[in-house]
């Protein structure tokens, strides 16, 4: 096998304060007959070791494509056109005490040996649909063992033992028996646990959970969220948690990245995003969701219009046609940039000065929601 350009950019020792994963100005476009879809258009965020980063956004905001670009598993037709994804990788995968190196994932060929070793061993994926993720003609145990045998130097018997252990760790009762069942024999909650078990089987340091609870019921969802939080604390795994559900994000994430039409609109700690949102989109989104804690039959303030079609992206700030703070000649002319408005709190909006993040207008003061009882 021909070795690629060596991606090692910095040798080991002093990485303790470095993020586990650093995404910088990532752009992934779909080149289609109808035109170019800028699915991810300049996304930057860091994932610190042992932290949960929540990526929240509505359909078409590019949250799933970002994840696929990181893992380099984009569909054909889609390409990373710009940006850097740097991973603090262990030299010996699976060994928690192994020395570390910085690897630029964007420099690796998607099919290269190194990229394939990283997938599953360093970065694991929990996909959205547990029914589609497992093959129906192999037992779940065999599929988990396949991952283990691929990434670790163990015998088949040991691999089975690891699979049983990880089944037990995710709270599946009778793991020795359940491991020999097929995915369609398991209930929704168990299947989701089995997927998590598979993702954890090689001790990855970064988990990407793509809408892991959207297909399951609330009481099961609560079980899975609790499990993920427990595993995350025990193993100090970092998680990128992708969802459209603001409630789930609030429960899980330390840091939140709010995306809209391929761009980061706002990012910061969960507390700042939920208690002190600064971007008009985040504010409007938070006001428009019904909550179990609000009064019933009160009209919700809404966001006008609907999400633009990807072929038909608005010029300038992608949110401007729906924004209540739209400034003619500014928002529709150029794209805003992320500015730091507070410590570790970034907003992508012209309402904030690029120089110091100061609010340029006071009219952004949160307008009270229309409270019209019916």
């Amino acid at each position, binding site marked *: 096998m021909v070795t690629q350009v060596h991606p090692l950019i910095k040798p080991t020792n002093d990485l303790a304060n470095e993020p586990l994963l650093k995404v910088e100005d990532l752009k992934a476009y779909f080149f289609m007959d109808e035109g170019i879809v800028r699915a991810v258009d300049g996304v930057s965020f860091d994932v610190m070791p042992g932290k949960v980063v929540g990526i929240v956004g509505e359909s078409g905001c590019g949250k799933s494509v970002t994840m696929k670009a990181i893992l380099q598993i984009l569909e054909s037709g889609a390409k990373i056109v710009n940006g850097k994804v740097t991973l603090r990788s262990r030299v010996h995968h699976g060994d928690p005490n192994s020395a570390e190196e910085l690897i630029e994932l964007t420099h690796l060929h998607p099919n290269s040996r190194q990229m394939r070793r990283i997938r599953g061993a360093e970065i694991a994926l929990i996909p959205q649909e547990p029914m589609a993720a497992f093959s129906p003609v192999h037992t779940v145990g065999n599929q988990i063992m396949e991952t283990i045998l691929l990434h670790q130097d163990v015998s088949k018997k040991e691999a089975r033992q690891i699979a049983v252990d990880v089944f037990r760790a995710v709270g599946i009762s009778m793991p020795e028996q359940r491991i020999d069942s097929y995915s369609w024999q398991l209930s929704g909650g168990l299947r989701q646990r089995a997927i998590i078990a598979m993702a954890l089987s090689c001790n990855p340091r970064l988990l990407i959970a793509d809408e892991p609870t959207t297909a399951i*019921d609330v009481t099961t969802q609560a079980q899975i969220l609790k499990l993920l939080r427990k595993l995350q604390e025990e193993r100090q795994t970092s998680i990128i948690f992708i969802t459209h559900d603001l409630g789930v994000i609030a429960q899980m994430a330390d840091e939140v990245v709010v995306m809209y039409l391929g761009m980061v609109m706002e990012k910061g700690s969960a507390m700042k995003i939920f208690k002190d949102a600064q971007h008009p989109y985040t504010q409007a989104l938070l006001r428009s969701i019904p909550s179990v*804690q609000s009064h019933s039959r009160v009209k919700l303030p809404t966001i006008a219009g609907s999400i633009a079609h990807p072929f038909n992206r608005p010029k300038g700030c992608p949110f401007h046609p729906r924004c209540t703070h739209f400034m003619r000649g500014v928002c529709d002319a150029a794209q805003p940039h992320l500015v730091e408005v507070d410590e570790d709190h970034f907003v992508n909006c012209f309402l904030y000065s690029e120089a110091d993040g100061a609010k340029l207008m006071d009219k952004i003061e949160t307008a009270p929601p229309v409270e019209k009882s019916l």
Partner: protein
Amino acid sequence: MSDGMQPLMPKAAASAKPPLLEVRHLKKYFPIYKGVLRKMVNQVRAVDDVSLFVREGETLGLVGESGCGKTTVSRCILRAIDPTSGEIQFREADGKVTDLAPLDRSELRRFRPQMQMIFQDPFGSLNPRMTIFEIVSEPLYVNGMRSKSEREDHVAELLRLVGLRTEYMARYPHAFSGGQRQRIGIARALALNPRLVVADEPVSALDVSVQAQVLNLMLDLQQKLNLTYLFVAHDLSVVKHISDRVCVMYVGKLVEMAATEELFQSPRHPYTAALMMAVPRPDPSSRDIIQDLPGEVASPANPPSGCYFHPRCQYATEVCRTQTPELREITPDHFVSCHRAEELQLAGIKVNQEQQL
């Protein structure tokens, strides 16, 4: 029908509006066949003795996890499927009450225009080969409005009502976003001036920012047209938002029915309380409040003995394992099917005042 069929109407609510719809002891069992002789070996008790009522002009939310039978209840009410047993009492505009359950197709025809449905999937429920005009006007045509110009006027009015431009009439569904399609589905449901609208998960396929638009539209239309909604959904916050009263279902049974605020603030059934504690709230400072419910939803083909919830219930006693609780009214207008409803002190959800400011 058996002797135990008492009307469910609350004693104290005689002054309240009469029920538009009253369902009594509704059952729907689906048979499971096996072997070459297709012998029936078991039954799935999708709906197992459900009684509920919907007052005129109100919204009744029907909430539960997948497989609890909420959709089957709504389909039985619309007589899209035939119930196994039970009564579906429907009150017509002139006050005449008819049981829909035993009626056949031709007898039901008279009632069909009065009960309409809004579907879950706005992409699957509109025929891609029909224009918006054809979709919305079809019920009018079927029910005897043959003049095209008359139908056009009517459709234009309906589109304006749901907030769509009338020029859209000649377009096909693919040209519309999810929220707009759902508006088209609502316009079609309203074409015949129904009195009862059954909405089965009408916003669950929509984006968060569009959900609020559709919910507001439904509230508006209800006020304007004096509609009665049966709102079926799995999302508690959406149900709380739109409903006057809420029913909670678990494995084919109704476990609790009460006014919305009452149900959320002081649930009396352990399942209702557990369901509410499991909802993730959009507030990072309330992280530890979220509690999970151990175990899995029971199978309606092989339900547990006694109360179906007892294997997961932390308050279960001997009586819960052996006797199936009946739905009863413990305080006016608050119905619960739990043996221990009176003695249990269950935590509800307080309304967050701060969020309302």
